């Protein structure tokens, strides 16, 4: 068993020799990467988006379009799934060697179902953001009212105490 020593650390440390005296004499950190980058031989992208079904080579069963009615499509995919289960049962009784095509169709429906559910996530994220912003606005308004009330209370107390002292 051959062992190799670890590679030496990169020689950039010499550039930071005078960092304590003059922070500007050392090079700036590299800017954040945008777009695609390669890491350990694999290519990644900074733009996180759900790849569409065609990109994965899967036929899309529900209609494309700007606004999809998720509930209707989910329900109709569910019914399709049940029908395919029954078809598989029939095929297994009569022509058992042809199960592969039916199983493939069932897995197609499952992939469509999961893709539809995954595409609901950005919508959910935006709805969560809206909810958080509304809560924050409500809390800020309550804090505002609280401060106003306390200030008025303090003014009132001062006036009262002034009246008490004057009457003395």
């Amino acid at each position: 068993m051959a062992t190799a020593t670890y590679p030496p650390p990169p020689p950039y440390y010499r550039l930071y020799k005078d960092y304590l005296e003059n922070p500007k004499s050392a090079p700036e950190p590299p800017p954040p990467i945008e777009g695609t980058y390669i890491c350990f031989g694999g290519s990644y992208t900074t733009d996180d988006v759900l790849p569409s079904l065609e990109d994965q080579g899967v036929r899309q069963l529900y209609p494309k379009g700007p606004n999809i009615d998720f509930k209707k499509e989910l329900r109709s995919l569910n019914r399709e799934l049940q029908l395919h289960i029954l078809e598989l049962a029939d095929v297994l009784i009569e022509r058992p060697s042809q199960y592969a095509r039916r199983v493939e169709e069932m897995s197609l429906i499952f992939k469509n179902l999961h893709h539809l559910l995954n595409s609901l996530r950005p919508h959910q994220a935006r709805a969560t953001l809206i909810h958080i912003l509304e809560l924050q606005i409500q809390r800020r308004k309550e804090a505002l009212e609280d401060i106003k009330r306390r200030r008025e209370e303090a003014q009132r107390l001062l006036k009262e105490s002034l009246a008490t002292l004057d009457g003395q």
Partner: protein
Amino acid sequence: MDIISQLQEQVNSIAALAFNTFGTLQRDAPPVRLSPNYPEPPPNPTEDSANFAEQPKLMSAALVKAAKQFDALVAALPPSEGGEEAQLRRIAELQAENDAVGQELQKQLEAAEKELKQVQELFSQAADNCLNLKKPD
């Protein structure tokens, strides 16, 4: 768990139930006579046939229940008002309102802190005067 994760779990469980149903029935099915040319298959031990008759019923009932559960979950999804642009517009509105309220809050806070400092100053002066006027015994 949030509704979408529940839906995903439900889809996976429907898949598991469906394929388990077929697998179990195929594995445990008693042999059946296919053609009159071949003799009757040997009778199998009774343990199989006793439980075996209800298994298709039970498993298909579970499958149908899971499918109904999925439909119930889909109905429980919150209504998706508008689309992406409507949501983004609402987010922009809420951000603007949040900023306005935040600035108002900041103003009130500064005024309140100023008043607090004034009162503290006056209080310390009054306390000093009290100490100076009080004659030592």
